[in-house]
């Protein structure tokens, strides 16, 4: 731990002249300090190396991957990417997922914001019960519901359809969305709302034209949260969209590719597919990492 590093650090502080604009970097403190800094870098490497290594492997032939895991590819083997895109159908899975998410995220945000707004700003009998009903849903282990859910969708002929998946995504994203947005709507100032009412705005106009725009920061954070969560969803499509492999979501498609790789032995294509699935997430992460970090940790910080 960082224990015992302070005396040395203090020593350097006292020794430091009051104002030195550009100080040359110098060793900070003692062995323990070096150790804890080393550990920080070690962890960073532990994140970077496996990811970079898979990217590198995706340019190797399958034989090179097995025989020389640590070496560089002899020549970039683009055929892996062609295989992953055409035989592996990664492009198709992307489109499928995007298609579902357009509706499921929009639906989640709309329904979530509506419920949260009413729960946060209106008093009526049953308000608390509904709120806690939603909040409790964050804790339920989803396995327990999988089979009854499968039967429910089967009964209304929505099994193996995108419509079915969309409404299930919405329903399972509501607990956190409502929980978070309720807290957010409560923090919004009442003055603006009252002024709008004086001006004659009805309940609906107040919500859509005044409250929603004011809640934008919260809505953005929770939208990011839901996009990432639903994009990465694995269990629900596995159970509810199992019939036609062509229709799979991206995570499911990758898992199928991994399974097939097991007996076809084309690990090059598998890694290329994995990298392809990682690229858009990586780009979005680099561009929006501040918002993403805020969005994903938002609920916990409240």
């Amino acid at each position, binding site marked *: 731990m960082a224990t015992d590093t*302070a005396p040395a*650090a203090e020593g350097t502080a006292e020794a430091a002249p009051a104002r030195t604009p550009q100080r040359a970097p110098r060793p900070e403190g003692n062995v323990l300090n070096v150790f804890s*800094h080393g550990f920080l870098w070690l962890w960073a490497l532990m994140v970077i190396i*496996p990811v970079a290594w898979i990217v590198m492997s995706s340019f190797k032939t399958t034989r090179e991957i097995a025989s020389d895991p640590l070496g560089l590819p002899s020549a970039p083997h683009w055929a892996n990417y062609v295989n992953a895109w055409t035989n592996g159908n990664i492009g198709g899975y992307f489109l499928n997922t995007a298609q579902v998410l357009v509706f499921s995220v929009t639906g989640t945000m709309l329904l979530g914001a509506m419920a949260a707004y009413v729960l946060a700003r209106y008093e009526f009998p049953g308000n608390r019960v509904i709120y806690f009903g939603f909040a409790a849903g964050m804790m*339920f282990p989803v396995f327990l519901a999988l089979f009854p*859910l499968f039967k*429910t969708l089967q009964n209304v002929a929505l099994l193996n359809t995108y419509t079915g998946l969309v409404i299930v995504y919405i*329903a399972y994203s509501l607990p956190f969305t409502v929980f978070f947005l309720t807290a957010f709507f409560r923090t919004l100032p009442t003055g603006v709302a009252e002024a709008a009412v004086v001006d004659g705005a009805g309940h609906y106009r107040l919500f859509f034209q005044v409250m929603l725009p004011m809640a934008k920061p919260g809505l953005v954070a929770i939208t990011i949260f839901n996009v990432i969560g639903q994009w*990465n969803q694995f269990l629900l499509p596995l159970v509810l969209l199992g019939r036609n492999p062509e229709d799979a979501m991206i995570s499911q498609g990758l898992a199928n590719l991994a399974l097939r790789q097991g007996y076809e032995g084309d690990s090059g294509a598998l890694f290329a597919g994995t990298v392809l699935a990682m690229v858009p997430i990586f780009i979005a992460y680099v561009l929006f990492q501040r918002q993403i970090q805020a969005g994903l940790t938002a609920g916990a910080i409240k």
Partner: protein
Amino acid sequence: MKHGKYPFILSFLALPVGLYAWLVILPFAQAFQISLTDWSGSSNSFDYIGFDNYANLFKDERLVLPALRHTGIILVVLPLVTIVLGLFFAFMLNLGGRVRQGRIEGVRGARFHKVVYFFPQVLSVAIIGILWKQVYAPENFGGLITGALTAVGLPAPVNGFLADTRFVLASVIGVLVWSAVGFYLVFFSSAMASIPRDLYEAAVIDGAGRGAMFFRITLPLLWDSVQTAWIYLSIVALDVFVLIYMMTPERGGPNAASEVVGGVIWKYAFNHGEQAFASALGVVLFFAALSLAVVSLRFGRREQIEF
């Protein structure tokens, strides 16, 4: 404005509450009901058999008992290791740097570390599973760790880490920690940022070391966040399954060495056609999650400190 309040409330709540009740609450309620029957899941006939499924759970030494043991291990190790690492890294990034004119700084490159550490959090479990399966692979399949061990002349498990009963569970827990640490680093970091700097600066003047600062100032003031993290990670631990499904042989093997409760529910429900038995195990998991949350909220309360 009073006019039309209830029609408005109703029109806004009907759809979300209806959908939630139909697709979330109802299936969970049905699972409780199913757990008291002998339903296989495919036929239309079943009888109520009381709590027999629950009694039989604890006699299943092939899958259920190992799964309960492994989930128990994950439940202890995952939150503990992740929180310790998360707190350590957050403290280093915020206050691990040098003291300059009585002001404490974070380490250099703190922003870079945060961005890197957090990245696994946005990757899907499918990607993480494929990535780490290859990292742990046997040497003749091009595994990273086995290859590196052999390259420096150390012994490596012949069949890789995941096909070895001694290493498989620890390997999976390692990946869980790997992907969770970044989240808790950012989480604790923003909690630490709200602690006033003068507290630390006063401590520096009083001659406190980094260790004293951490244990006397940071940790007590972060107690609520640690507690929240503990609940979150416990729920993650109870729900571990997809990674095992993606990475391990026989989806819980070898030899049931990485069976977890979620995976056993999956196997009984979708492979063995014993829906009622699977539901009973799911109900046990449900109450485990519930009591964890209640216990940590009930006994974890400390005095609130305002600043």
